[in-house]
């Protein structure tokens, strides 16, 4: 057990999107395991709550308002964290946004916004922190993709694409670290339905009620608590897993997608009708 906690005790962990949901739960979980935390979020409100909870567990915490879409700010932040803590061991690329909209109803800018945060935000963070992770001699990159980085779902084209992209980037990074024998491990996380603010804060294409979609998502697909997700991620990091799929339903769908890539598309389409997240007008709900 002591050995297990050495993975986190005294280690410097960077978490983006730490103000709520999985990010907050991750911070609290790592605080309980003795990690030193550099927390950031685009909104500072939730960050204070996260810091309060981490400090209650005796953790050293630094909080910063950071928009991962501002590349220069992310670069400066990485150097700042390195300077303040003396090292950087683990980065949890957790910040992400959701968006709902069918391909023919969404604007280019909607898709770009999703990519700016979910993909380019992660790229910026990894490129900014990678030198520090290598330098530490004991680095770990953890990227939070999604179940929707494994399977596709109607109305999720932008989100799906961004999460598939981030998965590809992360997995290739892992291979490079292996080939180059760098002291950096890489984990890609695919959470299933977690009760977080990502659906509730989601935007939707014009003409769709984002709040109603979020409510349906919460009621019908959000099966797990952020704490459960955080524990699963931390366990995966401890065991040096390359891939962490969270939730029995996510693991089942992952298997389905690998067993029958085309059949899983049909299944996803059927599922979207059953849960009726956002039926198209003129179609039966």
């Amino acid at each position, binding site marked *: 057990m002591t050995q297990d906690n050495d993975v986190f005790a005294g280690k410097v962990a960077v978490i983006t999107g730490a103000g709520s949901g999985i990010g907050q739960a991750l911070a*609290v979980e790592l605080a309980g395991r003795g990690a030193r935390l550099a927390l950031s979020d685009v909104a500072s409100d939730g960050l*204070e*709550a996260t810091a*309060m909870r981490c*400090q*209650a*567990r005796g953790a050293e915490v630094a909080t910063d308002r950071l928009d991962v879409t501002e590349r220069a700010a992310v670069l400066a932040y990485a150097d700042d964290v390195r300077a303040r803590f003396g090292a950087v061991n683990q980065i949890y690329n957790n910040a992400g946004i959701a968006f709902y909209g069918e391909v023919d109803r969404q604007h280019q800018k909607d898709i770009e916004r999703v990519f700016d945060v979910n993909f380019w935000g992660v790229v910026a963070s990894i490129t900014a922190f990678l030198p520090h992770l290598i330098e530490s001699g004991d680095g770990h990159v953890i990227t939070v993709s999604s179940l929707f980085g494994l399977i596709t779902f109607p109305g999720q084209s932008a989100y799906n694409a961004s999460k598939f992209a981030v998965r590809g980037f992360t997995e290739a990074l892992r291979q490079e670290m292996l080939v180059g024998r760098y002291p950096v491990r890489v984990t890609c996380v695919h959470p299933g339905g977690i*009760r977080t603010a990502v659906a509730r804060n989601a935007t939707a294409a014009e003409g769709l009620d984002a709040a109603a979609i979020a409510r349906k998502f919460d009621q019908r697909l959000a099966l797990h*608590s952020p704490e459960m997700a955080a524990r699963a991620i931390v366990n995966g990091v401890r065991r040096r897993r390359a891939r962490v799929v969270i939730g029995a339903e996510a693991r089942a769908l992952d298997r389905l997608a690998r067993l029958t890539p085309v059949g899983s598309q049909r299944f996803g389409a059927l599922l979207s009708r059953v849960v009726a997240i956002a039926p198209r007008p003129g179609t039966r709900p």
Partner: protein
Amino acid sequence: MRAPTIPLPLARTLLRPLYRTIFRPRIPWRVQRAVLNGVARCQPLPTGTLRRPLVLGERAAERVVADHDGGSGAVLYLHGGGYTVGSIGTHRSLAAHLAKRTRRPVYLLDYRLAPEHPCPAAVVDAVEAFLAMVVDEGHSPGDIALAGDSAGGGIALAAAQWLIHEHGMTPAALALISPWSDPAFVPVRRRDVVVNRAWGFACAGAYLGDGDALDWRYAPAQGDLCGLPPTYVLAAEEEILRDQIVELAVALRRSGTTVRYVESPRLWHAAQAQAGLVRQAADSVRDIAGFLTIRFLQRSPKCRTLT
């Protein structure tokens, strides 16, 4: 002298079905109250506990003492129970443990409950009781700490604001255990070991009556938090109120209040009420008592001349 305790997982396993059965909106309030009072009888009190019934303001109360060392300071304790249930009996064990660990008297108040008496009846009773402790019991206002769990935490916070802003009296300290200080806040989770959302809505509605949900006496977390004394805020990690308790702690700190925020990973909502049965709950009460005792000692004249 130590009463036997039961292991924490067992306590959780026993309590969950009990609470799940009685905390239902469709069960009449008086039935819920009777069951809770009955169950509370199996809670042992620490040896040497002395109880004296009295009247504070116009409400029945009980003065609980164990190992009183004669130092100044006292605690006015507001029991929890969703503003609708709970009594002196349900929280006597907690009060006795608090009295033992602070070595100060703890006054339990039988404040008026909703829906018979909606907001602000409970807060009025708490304020009246505080004033009676000053006038009848001879405590200096600055030597009285206000404490409470769950709804009692909300009442304690509202009463402290009332005393500070209306009477110019600042209590010695506040101890808020799993406080419910914003009944209009909708939690993400549906239930925890103790409470569930549907029951919470029923309680919040009963306590609101015809009032305004933004009234600070109803939702003291939305009120003026400036000038509050040092405050101990406690949440259980897995309780449905956790997010609003963290928000309250953040708001208190922002307003300049000295806050000690504690989060217990294994205990449940207001588990401190089971201090007589669960060792970890008793340990938590001891930590709260430590916080209050330091405040009492800092305020005593002896300490003042030293500094």
